[in-house]
């Protein structure tokens, strides 16, 4: 008879990193689906570019498709993995931090792929056709590091939104998620309405140009951080 020894506490920090491994169980959705979406978007963009006549630079932003997929990934990271994480006796905090780390890894991966794609475009002069899929002038104005950060921030932003919405759904139900969605839609519409009524679209666009993509990226990261805090607050009392 050997009584079970109380567990030594040294392993506790590793539990958060193990959550990352737990999340990576769904490698199909995490690695392969975004890559396939990206490849598809690039191929379609190239076809469109080849069809546009003229020698000008042709900007086709379709490659952002896989970034949007990260919103769905954020949802899945919650709905598919949270119940199992609870069965593994993982605290909500460990689950949350591990999941964010995984989202950051995925976002860094996407950003890097986009920078590589932009590099190819820069070297080959847009695949010899002046095409711009990832190498968008506005983003690359402040430099390549800033552009990488922009892609990273956009992906992470969508991931956190998806994760938070799924957490709201787990905790408060479908009605709450729909209400939040409608509220956001109304806010955006109201903003567009106000800007149009006031006739200040040129000023707004000028502001975006003057502010520059780097400052906007930093702003986006700050918003993402706020959303992440909201997601954690919601998760703390969420049940399976």
């Amino acid at each position: 008879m050997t009584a079970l020894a109380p567990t030594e506490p040294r392993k506790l920090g590793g539990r958060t990193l193990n959550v990352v491994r737990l999340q990576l169980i769904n490698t199909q959705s995490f690695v392969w689906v975004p890559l396939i979406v990206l490849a598809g978007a690039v191929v379609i963009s190239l076809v469109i570019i080849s069809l546009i006549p003229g020698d000008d630079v042709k900007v086709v932003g379709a490659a952002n498709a896989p970034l949007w997929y990260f919103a769905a990934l954020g949802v899945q990271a919650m709905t598919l993995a949270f119940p199992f994480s609870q069965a593994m006796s993982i605290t909500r905090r460990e689950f949350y931090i591990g999941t964010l780390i995984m989202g950051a890894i995925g976002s860094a991966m996407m950003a890097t792929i986009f920078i590589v794609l932009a590099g190819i475009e820069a070297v080959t002069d847009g695949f010899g056709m002046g095409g711009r899929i990832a190498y968008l002038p506005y983003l690359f104005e402040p430099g390549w590091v800033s552009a990488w950060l922009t892609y990273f921030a956009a992906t992470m932003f969508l991931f956190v939104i998806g994760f938070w919405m799924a957490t709201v759904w787990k905790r408060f139900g479908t009605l709450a998620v729909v209400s939040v969605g409608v509220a956001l839609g109304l806010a955006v519409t109201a903003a567009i309405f106000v800007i149009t009524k006031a006739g200040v679209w040129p000023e707004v666009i000028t502001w975006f140009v003057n502010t520059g993509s780097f400052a906007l990226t930093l702003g986006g990261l700050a918003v993402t951080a706020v959303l992440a805090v909201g997601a954690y607050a919601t998760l703390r009392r969420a049940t399976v």
Partner: protein
Amino acid sequence: MDPVIQVRDLTKKYKDTTALDGISFDIERNSIYGFLGRNGAGKTTAMSILTAQNFATSGSVKVFGENPYENARVLNRMCFVRESQKYPDEANARVAFRSAAMFFPNWDQQLCEQLIDDFQLPLKTTIKKLSRGQLSAVGVIIGLASRAEITFFDEPYLGLDAVARQIFYDRLLEDYTEHPRTILLSSHLIDEIANLIERVLVIDKGRILMDSSAEEAREQATTVVGDAETVDAVVAGRDVLHREALGRVASVTFRGQLSGEERERVDAAGLELAPVPLQQLIVRLTQHESAAGATYETEGALR
């Protein structure tokens, strides 16, 4: 008493129902508990709160002397096998076990492999394509091989055939003997687990109906069988839990036991004393307790 879990005045209210109504109990270290009660009695809710998967409306829960909520030190030492556990979409059983091995410090891979063989569990099929019985086997294997200091099994037998259930009971007892720990087993198949459990915790309508050792539980009631009139004379004035009659023969179950002198009289009168199986006792007790408030339910069932 060396309690690993202490529950005091625990209440859980959902919008329009009270799942747990101010219950208090202790769970002793290194003991197998039968956590019994009807569907909706509050068993799963109680186990969810003990493992911090759900939240109490009021009252307190202490596990190893601490609040389990967001407490990795405590959660680390517990394993809760849910009847309706969800697994990651693409996971197969092998992947689920590998995850469990990462998070449960006492995980025994050898035991896991042996159980996989015992239950003939396919490892490469994704979990969502497994049969109900195979799904239960995944949970049972995680619960046993994790060898957590406190393990909760919530109706772990769903879909398992009689052979597989016996394997579960046998392996549980074998491993428990070698590695004593605290196990809470919630089940409707009370007679099947009657020989397994050392203590009985019965919950009904969010309240504790019985909290005793399995032996004491069996001594709580007696059944007398024989001539109806004689039987009725013997049980007169006693707390009768159940009465059945066929012709002139009656079988009456009542709370408590007969004294030595009464036994002799019963023998002399040609009556027989029958043991009350645990399942019978719990069914009768539950019916008895709710009889007053539930007359209309019975009528509803008769219609």
